[in-house]
C-alpha cells in the first residue's frame, strides 16, 4: 500500500474547494446573455386546465416569452419516458400514461408544471407568472392508495383503477404449500413512510443554444448526465447526441433524487432554442419539496411461516406502492426488482412469493431514494423477524442465527431471482453484537429504569444488491438501458493522468477514491491524477451514479483501462530497453527488465509514447490513452448488522438514540475514511426515516409537510456518536472485489431503530409503531390513545 493507494485514509481532495466555497455548482454558472425562468406550478392536486391565458404576462416588463403545454405539444415535444418496463402477472406490459413536461389538459399534483415565463430577471419572470390567468376546473384528488385502487377518481383517464401494474415474483404454489405446513404463522401490516429528499443544493438548470451549430448545452444538477442526454435527446426533444451536450458540474447531493430526467430540463432546453437566449432556472426550496421525486411510500401485508424448530419455511408479501402522479424515470423498478428480489435477506427461507401493485395518486412522483426498494424490503423483513421472535418466544438473536445463510453455502441462490456471491452473515452479526455489548444490555435497561426511562435494543440484519447492474440481467427484467460503466485513462506526456469516468460524484468523494485506485495501480502520487466526470463532451459515455455502483462498476472500468495502459507501456519499455516484453516487470511506477538493473520510470515511458523517436511504431501507435467499458456478471451484495439502543421518555414519548452500532461488509475498502463517512450519512438518513421524516398530504392533496417548519430533517443532535466498522468478506464478483457503501446505512438502520423502540415499550404491551416514530406517536402508543392527528 502506498501512502495514497488502496486502503489509505486519504483526505478528500475535493473538500478544499467545497469547504472554501469554491465549488462550481449549476447556479454558480452564468452564460452570456442569460435570461431567467420561473415555472408556474399548479396549486391544485387535480384539475382540468380549462384555459391558460398568458396575454398579460407576455406584455409584462422584461418578459421574453411565456410558454405552455399547448406550445410544447404544437412543437411535437414528447413525454418524459420511464426507463424500466414492468410486466403484469398476466404478462401484459405496465400502463404508461403520458407525462408531458408542461401540463396539457390536466394537472395531477400540487407543483405540476403549467407554464414557463422567461424574462430578463428572475424577479420579472416571477412577477409575470402572477399575471397568468389559469382557469382550473378542480377535480377531486385521490391520495390514499386504497381509494385510488377503488377507481372512483382517475389520475389518468387511460389507467383504470389507477393501477400502473400488478406484478409478482416467486413461486406462489410452493409458498402456499409451506404455509399449509407451518407450525406458526406471523403476520404484520406495515407502512414504509414517504420521504422527501433534501439535497443541500436544490435542482437547477441552464440551457444554452448555439444557433450557428445547432448545438444545445444543458447544465443540470444530475447524477447521470449521459442518461439525461439519452432520455431527453432521444425520447423528448429528438436531439441527436452530437448536437446535445449535458454537463452536471459540482452537484450538492442527490440521494437518488437527481437520477431522473425532470420536466424542467426538457422545458428549458426546448425554450432556449425558441428564445435564442441561455436560460437559467434554480428551484426554490419550496419547489424542491413539491417537485423532486419522493421516496418509499409502501403499504404491505407480510406473513412468515415457521416450522416447529423456528426455521423460516415461507414468506408471503403483498405490497401496494404509491408511484405518484406520473411514472418517474425509474419509478417502476424500485418497488419491484430493487425491492422484492431482496426478500430472502440473509435467511434461508426456501419459498417466497411477493405481489406488488403500483398505484397512481395525485402526489409527487415516487422514485429511487437512497437505498431504493432495499430499505423497504429490509424494514419489512426485520420487523417481521422481530415479531416472530416475540410470538414464538425464541430469542431474537437465536432466531436470526438459526435461519441465516451460512458461509459455506455460497454461491447462494435465493427463491427470488438473485444469486448471492459471497458473504459471512454470522460473522458480521457476532461482531455487531459484541461491539454493541448486547450481552450487557439488561444492566443498562435496569439503570435507565431507575431514572424513569424505558430502554430498548433493536437488531437489523440486511443484505442489498448493489453495483447495479449486469446489463443482460437488467435488460431481461425490463430495463431499457445498459448498466455498464466506462473509463478513459489518459496518460499525459510527462506522466500525469486524467481519468474520465462515466460515474458522477455528488458528495461521494470519487475524485479521491478513484485517484487512489489509479495511484495504486500506476505507482504514482495521487497529486498526479485528476478525475473528470459530468460533461458528456469530455466523458466518452456513462450510466452515472446510483445503486452504490460507482466503485463496483465504474472502478473496474478504470482498472481495465489502467491495465491496458500498462500493457502498452510494457511494449514501449521493452523496445527502448531492448528486452523481450515478457521480461518487463511493472511495479512501484517503474518498468524493469527482470533480473537486471535496467529500468524506466512511468513518466519516461509516457514521454516516449508521445515523442516516439525510438519506438516500436510498426507494432503499436503513439500515445498512451486507453478506454474501457466494464459490465459486471453479477450484482455485488453488501450486508451487515445494525444494532440500535434507545431510551424513551414515557412522559413525553421522546426517543433518544443512545447507541447505534453498524458492522458492514462492503468488500474491499479503498478509503476507510470515506467509507465511514458514507456509513455515517446513511445511518443518519435511516434514523431520519425511522424517527423524524414523514411526508404528509391532506385529503385534498395539499402537501402539509412542505417546508422545514413541518418536515423534520435529522440534525446533528438527533443522532448519537456512531460505532461503525467494517467486516469485509472478499470475493465479490468484480475485479476490485468491492461491494458498495453508499446505501448501507439507510438500508439497515430503520428497522433497528423501530425494533429498539418496540423492545423498550414491550413491557407496556405496545406491539406496533409506525415510522416516523414521533414523540406524539410514541406517547399515543404508550397511552393506548386512539386520538387521531388532526390532519388525518
Amino acid at each position, binding site marked *: 500500500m502506498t501512502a495514497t493507494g488502496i486502503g489509505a485514509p486519504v483526505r478528500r481532495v475535493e473538500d478544499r474547494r467545497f469547504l472554501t466555497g469554491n465549488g462550481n455548482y449549476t447556479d454558480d454558472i452564468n452564460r452570456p446573455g442569460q435570461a431567467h425562468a420561473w415555472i408556474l406550478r399548479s396549486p391544485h392536486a387535480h384539475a382540468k386546465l380549462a384555459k391558460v391565458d398568458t396575454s398579460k404576462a407576455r406584455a409584462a416588463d422584461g418578459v421574453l416569452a411565456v410558454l405552455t403545454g399547448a406550445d410544447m405539444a404544437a412543437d411535437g415535444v414528447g413525454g418524459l419516458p420511464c426507463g424500466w418496463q414492468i410486466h403484469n402477472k398476466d404478462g401484459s406490459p405496465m400502463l404508461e400514461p403520458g407525462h408531458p413536461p408542461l401540463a396539457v389538459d390536466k394537472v395531477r399534483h400540487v407543483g405540476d408544471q403549467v407554464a414557463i415565463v422567461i424574462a430578463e430577471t428572475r424577479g420579472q419572470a*416571477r412577477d409575470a407568472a402572477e399575471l397568468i390567468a389559469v382557469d382550473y376546473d378542480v377535480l377531486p384528488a385521490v391520495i390514499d392508495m386504497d381509494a385510488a385502487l377503488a377507481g372512483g377518481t382517475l389520475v389518468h383517464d387511460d389507467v383504470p383503477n389507477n393501477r400502473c401494474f400488478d406484478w409478482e415474483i416467486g413461486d406462489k404454489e410452493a409458498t402456499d404449500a409451506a404455509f399449509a405446513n407451518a407450525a406458526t404463522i406471523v403476520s404484520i401490516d406495515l407502512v414504509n413512510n414517504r420521504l422527501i429528499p433534501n439535497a443541500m443544493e436544490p435542482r437547477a438548470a441552464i440551457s444554452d443554444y448555439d444557433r450557428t451549430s445547432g448545438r444545445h448545452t444543458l447544465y443540470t444538477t444530475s447524477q447521470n448526465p449521459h442518461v439525461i442526454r439519452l432520455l431527453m435527446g432521444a425520447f423528448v426533444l429528438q436531439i441527436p447526441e452530437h448536437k446535445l451536450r449535458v454537463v452536471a458540474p459540482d452537484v450538492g447531493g442527490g440521494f437518488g433524487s437527481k437520477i431522473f430526467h425532470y420536466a424542467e430540463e426538457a422545458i428549458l432546453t426546448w425554450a432556449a432554442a425558441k428564445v435564442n437566449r441561455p436560460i437559467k432556472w434554480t428551484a426554490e426550496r*419550496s419547489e424542491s419539496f413539491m417537485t423532486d421525486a419522493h421516496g418509499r411510500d409502501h403499504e404491505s401485508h407480510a406473513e412468515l411461516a415457521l416450522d416447529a424448530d423456528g426455521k423460516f419455511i415461507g414468506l408471503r408479501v403483498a405490497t401496494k406502492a404509491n408511484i405518484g402522479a406520473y411514472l418517474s424515470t425509474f419509478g417502476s423498478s424500485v418497488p419491484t426488482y430493487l425491492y422484492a428480489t431482496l426478500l430472502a435477506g440473509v435467511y434461508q427461507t426456501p419459498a417466497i412469493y411477493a405481489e406488488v401493485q403500483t398505484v397512481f395518486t395525485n402526489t409527487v412522483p415516487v422514485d429511487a431514494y437512497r437505498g431504493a426498494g432495499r430499505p423497504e424490503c429490509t424494514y419489512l423483513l426485520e420487523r417481521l423477524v422481530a415479531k416472530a421472535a416475540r410470538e414464538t418466544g425464541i430469542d431474537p438473536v437465536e432466531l436470526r442465527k438459526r435461519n441465516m445463510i451460512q458461509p459455506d453455502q455460497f454461491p447462494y441462490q435465493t427463491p427470488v431471482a438473485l444469486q448471492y456471491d459471497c458473504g459471512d452473515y454470522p460473522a458480521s452479526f457476532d461482531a455487531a453484537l459484541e461491539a454493541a455489548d448486547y450481552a450487557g444490555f439488561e444492566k443498562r435497561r435496569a439503570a435507565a429504569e431507575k431514572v424513569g426511562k424505558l430502554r430498548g435494543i433493536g437488531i437489523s440484519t440486511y443484505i442489498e444488491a448493489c453495483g447495479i447492474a449486469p446489463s443482460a440481467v437488467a435488460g431481461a427484467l425490463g430495463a431499457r438501458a445498459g448498466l455498464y460503466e466506462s473509463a478513459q485513462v489518459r496518460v499525459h506526456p510527462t506522466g500525469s493522468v486524467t481519468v474520465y469516468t462515466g460515474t458522477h460524484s455528488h458528495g461521494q468523494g470519487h475524485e479521491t477514491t478513484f485517484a487512489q485506485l489509479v495511484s495504486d495501480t500506476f505507482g504514482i502520487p495521487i497529486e498526479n491524477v485528476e478525475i473528470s466526470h459530468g460533461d458528456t463532451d469530455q466523458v466518452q459515455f456513462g450510466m452515472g451514479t446510483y445503486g452504490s455502483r460507482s466503485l463496483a462498476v465504474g472502478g473496474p472500468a478504470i482498472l481495465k483501462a489502467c491495465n491496458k495502459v500498462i500493457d502498452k507501456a510494457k511494449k514501449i519499455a521493452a523496445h527502448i530497453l531492448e528486452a523481450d516484453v515478457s521480461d518487463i516487470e511493472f511495479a512501484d511506477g517503474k518498468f524493469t527488465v527482470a533480473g537486471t538493473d535496467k529500468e524506466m520510470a512511468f513518466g519516461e515511458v509516457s514521454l516516449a509514447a508521445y515523442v516516439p523517436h525510438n519506438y516500436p511504431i510498426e507494432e503499436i501507435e503513439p500515445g498512451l490513452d486507453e478506454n474501457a467499458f466494464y459490465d459486471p456478471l453479477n450484482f455485488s451484495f453488501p450486508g451487515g448488522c445494525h444494532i440500535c439502543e434507545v431510551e424513551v421518555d414515557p*412522559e*413525553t*414519548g*421522546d426517543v433518544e438514540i443512545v447507541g447505534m452500532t453498524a458492522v458492514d461488509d462492503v468488500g474491499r475498502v479503498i478509503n476507510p475514511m470515506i467509507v465511514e463517512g458514507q456509513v455515517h450519512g446513511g445511518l443518519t438518513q435511516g434514523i431520519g426515516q425511522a424517527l*423524524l421524516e414523514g411526508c*404528509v398530504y391532506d385529503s385534498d392533496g395539499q402537501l*402539509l*409537510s412542505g417546508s*422545514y*417548519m*413541518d*418536515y*423534520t*430533517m435529522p440534525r446533528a443532535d438527533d443522532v448519537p456518536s456512531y460505532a461503525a466498522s467494517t467486516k469485509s468478506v472478499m470475493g465479490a464478483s468484480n475485479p476490485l472485489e468491492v461491494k458498495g457503501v453508499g446505501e448501507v446505512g439507510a438500508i439497515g438502520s430503520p428497522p433497528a431503530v423501530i425494533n429498539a423502540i418496540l423492545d423498550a415499550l414491550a413491557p407496556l404491551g405496545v406491539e406496533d409503531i409506525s415510522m416516523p416514530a*414521533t*414523540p*406524539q406517536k410514541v*406517547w*399515543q402508543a404508550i397511552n393506548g*390513545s386512539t*386520538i*387521531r*392527528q*388532526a*390532519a388525518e
Partner: protein
Amino acid sequence: MYQFNYQKAGSADAAAKAVTSSEDGRFLAGGMTLIPTLKQRLAQPSDLVDLAGIGDLVGIEDGGDSVTIKAMTRHVDVANSPVVQSKIPALASLASHIGDPQVRNRGTIGGSLANNDPAADYPAAVLGLNATVITNKREIAADDYFDGMFTTTLEEGELITAVRFPVPGKAAYTKFPNPASRYALVGVMVAQTGGEIRVAVTGAGQDGVFRAAEIESALSGNWSADAAKGVKMSADGLNADIHASADYRAHLISVMASRAVAAAG
C-alpha cells in the same frame, strides 16, 4: 419578494412617524419572520422601516427589582447578559434556546413580541414573569398585551421600545420543541413573583400564549412538580396539527410545567 420602499429610522418617534405616514408600512426589527414572509411573497408592505440604526432601542438595564430589556436587543445578548443571568436566569436560558444561532444573532425581543407567533418563546416569558411592555405611547401590562394568534393590542404605528421584567423569586422555562421547526410545541414558564404564581403556556393555544389557571391554582397550594403534573389540562382551545394533537399538547403542558417547577426549585 415584491418591491417595497426601504426607510431607515434614526429614532423611535421617526420610525413610528414613517410607518404611519406610509401606505402600508411595517417596522423591520431583526426580520427573522418578516424577511422569510416577504421572500415567499406572503406579505406586500409598501414600506419597511428599519429599526436597526436606533441606538436607544438596544441595551439591558438593571433596575434593582426589575430588568428592562430594550426592544432591539438580540436574543444572544439577552442570553449572555450577566444582569439577566443573575437576576432572571430563566429568561437568559429561554433566550439561549430560541431558534438557532443565526436567529439568536439577528432576532430581537421587540420583534418577537410584536409578531406574537403562537409558538414563540418570549410571549411565555412576558406573560409568565408578568412583564410590562413599554411602547412609544404607553405601558401595557402583560395580561393586556397578547390578543390572539399573531395579534397584540399594539395600535397602528405603536412601537415597542422596551420590556420591563420584575425579578421573580423563582422561575423556570421548559419547552418541548416541535421536532421540525423547533419552535415550542409546548413551552411553559412558571414563576413566583412576590406572592403571585404564574404559569404561562406558549405553543399550545389556538389564541397564542395563555395562563394555565388550573396549574397556577394547584401550585399556589403546593409548589411542587407533582402538583403541576397532577393537573389534567383540558384540550379545548388547544392547537392540533400534524405534529401534535390537542390531547397530546394538553398532556405536555402538565409535564413541562412540572419539569419547570422542578428546575425552578
